């Protein structure tokens, strides 16, 4: 949300604008921004630039702006993400923009055992429940 820029002599108007915006937000309990973040007990800090991900599942792009202040804007609701052992598979923000917003997080499964190695070897089952790299007999 952007507030109007103020100039000398327009302070009163700006204060009135702020009051209107604040009142409006209180009335509709708006939270136009959602921040999902790691809990402090697993947070290792950021790495690299921001990524910008547009709707429609388009590939995320490097965000040309590096400014963390966007994460603490007005009308932001904060959620702590769970510590998923293998990363996150999907996140649903239900009722985003309402006071009842809730995040539903689905953890990802561990990486699958490679089904096919680069030289075309398919792991085969072996006694004891494990697998080996033995080649399947030709059909």
């Amino acid at each position, binding site marked *: 949300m952007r507030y109007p820029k103020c100039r000398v002599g327009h*302070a009163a108007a*700006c204060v009135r604008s702020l009051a209107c915006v604040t009142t409006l937000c209180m009335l509709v309990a708006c939270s136009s921004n959602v921040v999902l973040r790691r809990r402090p007990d697993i947070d290792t800090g950021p790495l*690299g630039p921001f990524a910008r991900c547009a709707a429609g599942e388009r590939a995320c792009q490097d965000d040309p702006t590096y400014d963390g202040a966007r994460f*603490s804007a007005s009308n932001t609701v904060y959620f702590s993400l769970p510590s998923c052992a293998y990363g996150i598979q999907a996140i649903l923000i239900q009722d985003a923009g309402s006071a009842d917003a809730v995040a539903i997080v689905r953890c990802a499964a561990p990486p699958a055992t490679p089904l096919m190695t680069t030289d075309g070897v398919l792991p085969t089952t072996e006694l004891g429940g494990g697998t080996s790299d033995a080649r399947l007999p030709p059909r």
Partner: protein
Amino acid sequence: MRTLPQLPNTQVTSLAHWSNFHHTVFQRPVPIYLTPGAFGVPAGSTRGAAFIPDLNAILDYCMADPPERLCTIGSRWSLSNILDPGSVLLDPGVWNEIAAVAPGWLTNEYKQASAARHGVPVVVQGGTTIRALNQALGAAQLALQVSGASDGHRIAGCIATGTHGSHLRVGAVHDSVLGVYLVTGPNQAVLLQPSRRRFSPQLAQWFQDATTLATRDIADDELFAAAQVALGGLGFVHSVIVEAVPLYEWYGQTLARPLFDPAIWHAMETLDTAGLGSMTSPEYFSLVFSPFAGAGENGAFASWLCKQPASRPYAAPGPVRPRIASDLTQLLSQLIPLVDHGLGAAVIGQVIAAQTAAQYRGGAVAPTFPDSTFGPTSLPEGNGRSVELVVDHADTRRAVQTTIATLQREGRAGRHLLGGVGVRFAPRTNALLGMNIHAMNTYIEFPSLGSADTSTIHRAVWQALRAAGIAFTCHWGQEYGMDASSVRAYFGDRVERWRTARAALLPSTAARAVFTNPLLEALGLS
């Protein structure tokens, strides 16, 4: 601009707008933003060595003729121009591994010297945040002896600018550093420690094996003392070795009194808190003054803390939310000076005083782990401003009085500092450019929201201190009112000794051009 070499394990990005945490460096273009490790660790590699070829290639690129400055960022918290980037910016966050030094590699002299405090040397790579380090240490029933006021900064940046806390016995964070591992050029590294060695040569060999970098093992007091506060000017800080201690908890008291309460000012001058009701001699002591507090209102807040052994299993701090929205701070900062110059000036002072008093209520401080006491910041990014002065503790009363009087005078003129005054302490350091060069040192900080008047207020305080004949320096990581001559006046021959150490560690002109920054150049340190 030259063509970058192939950097297979580094993300290379071009940014249109890069800003530091507080927006004192705002929307700078960064044509080459480098993030080693952004794609993960390549298969078959160990993390310690995986990104060294890229680092070597980056340094080769920067040191070619003409040299290109390499700006290596921490958590971007510095408000000074030390991190004002050039064309090449390196994010070293992947270097965040932590390992205790093998006990067999510690010298007998160090073991004896550290026995009473049960010191445990820990290798911490430069990109590690204080928070991540606290977590790792806490899980091992260990803790840092001292940190700054929050935990989001990276260890290399933390010590590079002299972050200090207010520990009356340990000193600043750089005073708990036992060794520094610097990369000074492509495939060139050095492990620095004092001449009275803490570590056997096995540690330097370990670094060489882990990184594949040719590593010199140097035990030299001057070079080590230079590297303790390196200001980004001595090379790439790959790792530091900090001394951890057994996990402890802080407990103590906060006392709220009127602004010029005699008992608080006496404690500030003597560091004796008995007159405040403290039953024991604290290890941590700090003060906050609210310069616009009215008569009869609380405007001086003293906090003292003592350590006790951990009484319960370690638990990390919980999440915090920003105290105020970042866009709201910007709006307020635009509005307040307009009101400030009109009829509402007195009201602004009262609002600031009330906000300060609300944050520092008196009462007991229940035992908390150090990373909860000095945990995640609730300060929003953007629009923060701050200056920190450092003076000989003998000058404390005059310096704090002068600062408060100047802020009050500026307020009466319609220019309010949108914040308060913090006062903290640390004993002498051996670090050449540590700000705590006196037997005891007083840090006087006045952080605030930014406004159109903030720079004028800062200049007024610096001018008033000079007019009063009070010698001071400014925090390297905050806005400063220093120039080359005033830095030399404060630090004396330490400046030339630091420059001599820099020339020894970076003998080539190209290397010194790579590891420099606007702060070094402005203050005659490059």
